[in-house]
């Protein structure tokens, strides 16, 4: 059965069965309730779900998925809806499973360095709670205040700290997952090490909701560092900034974050935060963590490297407030871009080997000029991850077309440089075709057979990735 909007009698019957599972209030079917679930942060992709169901327990998820599988209704699990590639847009209609009600932090164990959570917990809320116990979970996506842990895991999100600590896949111990046939399984273990069979945990993390619904996760956490120091620096040339990054790594220092922002992002941040930042070509943000002595030593070392590399204004945040302000430049500068451009921002994503970063940055600028598209640049420069931010007039279809072509060329350029088409945003709808380019037919065949083994009826987030 293909449950689609506009099929009232079928929908009504399914609604009644779902209402018995989660209650009337948690089955949404009116146009005004459904419409906000028709998009995510990709914005250019939209599709109406037939229903939105808001479960509160893993058992409710089991019942919903069992019903959906029996009736062959697509199921799209959704958290904060901040995905940039259309990952939670219900392209084949069906049920959007809004997991934001499953938002309990179940256990924080300082001794076991483990935290058990439900998928709807907001990342920023978890960070605050862990902080109370002197712990932290390293993945830190920019959307921390609104994205959910389920979303972070499903997309294997990284964030700024990925440079030192890796992405979500590196900080997961085990999962509770409802499979497409409605069975509930546990993967991994609750120990810091486990070496038993295929690693289903890390297969499901990053699978973008195509293999099952995560209903609980055991996260690996670690003690918060004794201290963190935040440095900022400005450069008159983007290339000089790129060279400075290489020198920092050559010196043997491993910062927690090395973020690069171009003039457009700095100007937008100034417009929004009124910080009076210098109007430089590039700005860099560096975090160093460890013991006080370590941080003091490495901070001095990095300050020296930056100055030698031609930075115009190297500063160390003197207070917690100053640190937070610097962080906001990076986190919110790009969102403030429309204040300057009057257009919608479309953040994109690719990753190259560090040695190719300066070349990649230059080529993005050349391609932007070729396609006459305003492109700002943000980069997790320490791990070669670049986010070209397009400013697009979405009411102009030719401009949207140009943006798509430019994105494709940028990603192909990244592949030519030995990179990847997504460092952290994932594939969703947006990069399915590019995934085919990157993976090749043989890898894709394996992935597709894995998908078939998990989900023979193809109900879990169909139409996503290239599987």
């Amino acid at each position, binding site marked *: 059965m293909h449950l689609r909007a506009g099929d009232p009698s079928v929908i009504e019957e399914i609604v009644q069965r779902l209402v018995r599972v989660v209650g009337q209030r948690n089955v*949404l079917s*009116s*146009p*005004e*309730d459904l*419409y*906000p*679930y*028709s*998009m*995510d*942060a990709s*914005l250019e992709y939209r599709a109406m779900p037939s229903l*939105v169901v*808001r479960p509160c327990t893993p058992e409710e998820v089991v019942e919903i998925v069992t019903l959906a599988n029996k009736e062959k209704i697509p199921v799209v699990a959704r958290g*904060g*809806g*901040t995905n940039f590639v259309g990952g939670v847009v219900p392209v084949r209609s069906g049920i959007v499973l*809004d997991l*934001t*009600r499953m*938002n309990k932090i179940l256990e924080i164990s300082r001794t076991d360095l483990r935290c058990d959570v439900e998928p*709807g917990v*907001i990342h*920023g809320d978890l960070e605050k709670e862990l902080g109370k116990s002197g712990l932290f979970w390293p993945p830190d996506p*920019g*959307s921390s*205040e*609104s*994205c959910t842990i389920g979303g972070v895991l499903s997309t294997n999100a990284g964030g700024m700290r990925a440079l030192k600590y890796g992405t979500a896949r590196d900080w997961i111990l085990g999962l509770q997952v409802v499979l497409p046939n409605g069975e509930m399984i546990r993967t991994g273990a609750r120990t810091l090490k486990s070496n038993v069979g295929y690693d289903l945990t890390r297969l499901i993390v990053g699978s973008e909701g195509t293999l099952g619904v995560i209903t609980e996760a055991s996260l690996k956490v670690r003690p918060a560092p004794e201290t963190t120091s935040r440095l900022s620096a400005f450069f008159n040339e983007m290339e000089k900034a790129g060279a400075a990054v290489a020198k920092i790594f050559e010196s043997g220092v491993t910062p927690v974050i090395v973020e690069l922002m171009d003039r457009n992002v700095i100007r*937008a941040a100034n417009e*929004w935060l009124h910080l009076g930042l210098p109007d430089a070509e590039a700005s860099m943000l560096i975090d160093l963590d460890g013991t006080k002595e370590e941080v003091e030593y490495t901070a001095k070392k990095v300050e020296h490297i930056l100055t030698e590399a031609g930075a115009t204004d190297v500063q160390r945040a003197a207070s917690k407030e100053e640190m937070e302000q610097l962080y906001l430049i990076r986190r*919110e*500068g*790009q*969102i*403030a*871009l*429309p*204040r300057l451009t*009057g*257009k*919608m*921002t479309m*953040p994109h994503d690719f990753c190259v080997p560090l040695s190719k970063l300066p070349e990649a940055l230059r080529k993005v600028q050349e391609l932007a000029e070729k396609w006459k598209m305003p492109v700002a640049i943000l980069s997790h420069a320490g791990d070669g991850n670049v986010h070209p931010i397009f400013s697009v007039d*979405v*009411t102009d279809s030719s401009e949207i077309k140009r943006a798509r072509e430019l994105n494709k060329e940028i990603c192909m350029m990244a592949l030519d440089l030995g990179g990847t088409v997504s460092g952290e945003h994932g594939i969703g709808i947006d990069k399915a075709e590019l995934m085919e380019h990157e993976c090749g037919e043989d890898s894709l065949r394996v992935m597709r057979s894995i998908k078939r083994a998990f989900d023979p009826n193809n109900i879990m987030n169909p139409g996503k990735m290239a599987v």
Partner: protein
Amino acid sequence: MASPALRELAKKLYYCEHCGLCRSVCPILRQSSQEESVGPRGRKTLFLGLAEGQLNPSPALAEKFYLCATCRACYFKCPAGIDIGEFSILARHELVKAQAVSPFVRRVTSSVRGGVTRGDIFGAARTKAKWSRGLDIPGNGETLFFASCMDSSMAYGEALLGLLQLPLRIGERLVSASGTLQSIGLYHLFESAAQGSLRFYRNALVDSVKSLQILGVDVAYMRDEEPCCGVALHTYGLVDEFSEHARKVQKIFAEKGVKRLITHNPICGAAFKTLYPQFVKDWNIEVKHVTEVVAEKMSEHDLRFPSKKTTVTYHDPCFLARYMNVVEEPRTILKRMENIQLVEPPHSKVDTYCDGGGGVELLYPDVCQDIAESRVKELVSTGAEKIVSCCPVCALMLKEGIRKAGVKAQYADIMTLFYEAAKSVHR
């Protein structure tokens, strides 16, 4: 509904990156278990759907926009600078025009329309100046103390909120008919039955004026002739009528030679300070909140007053902090009152947290009361004995929150605290 004008208005919504930062601060969303359509980002999407012709006008759609407290928390959080509250008002305007609102909203808007025309949104125009009896205050002058019907008649609001909790929607009917009840003389019954409540709200006005007089600030008060600012018309989506009403009010002030307004109610203050310049050509009246004037005088003359020893926490009203940009002045007053210890709540200044007021508490009393309760719990977590603020609607909601939360803390208006301290020195 996909008119070119509406599409043009919606253009700014394309600035939104859908980052969801607004969701993290919306008081309504938190009370509604994060349901997408109830939060600011959902309202953005719904406005786009309306403007692009994807969604038809309907009372169910209107409800999503009437559920916005217009507290501007999302606007202050949004790096792209989108004020979803403003879009909620625009949507209400479109939906009221299309008659796509529920019968209850229709009755309330009709009641508001009548109230504003008569000079008091609660229909209590005949008694609204009663608070000023016995005060030596001229009727005309360049500087007006604008008392506002919300301050003088908020006790009626309190009663209406109580009525809404009655079963079988009796309350809804009574609220809708309140204007009529007032006009047939029911307010006499109410006056005798709710003396305590009336005195509480009216005292804030008396204490404001007496404080200004102690500080040597000459103010006039128009008494029964004081027009309603009309902000409720705007809030409920009657934007064209608000525009027309604002022009009338400007004319009245011009005829009286008014150059400066001092308000106690920040909702009316915000209307005069931020809305009137948008709707009225050549609006050039200076608008200040009473705490701005008092703090200025205290700082200018380095005044300090002894007060009873107590710990207070200050609740920033959204309309004062986020529309009138007044956050430091109330703190200046409290810090200059000796023996008062001011403790800040987790959400303060422009990061304040709505208490459920904002104009839609009569439409959604349950949601708004839950928000009030949650704000009160946060405020008393500071250990304060008193919750201090300076807005009649916040007073109403925080008193309601105190009752619901069952906490010991008391609500006090900042001007009452100030006057109590100042008069002992001034005598």
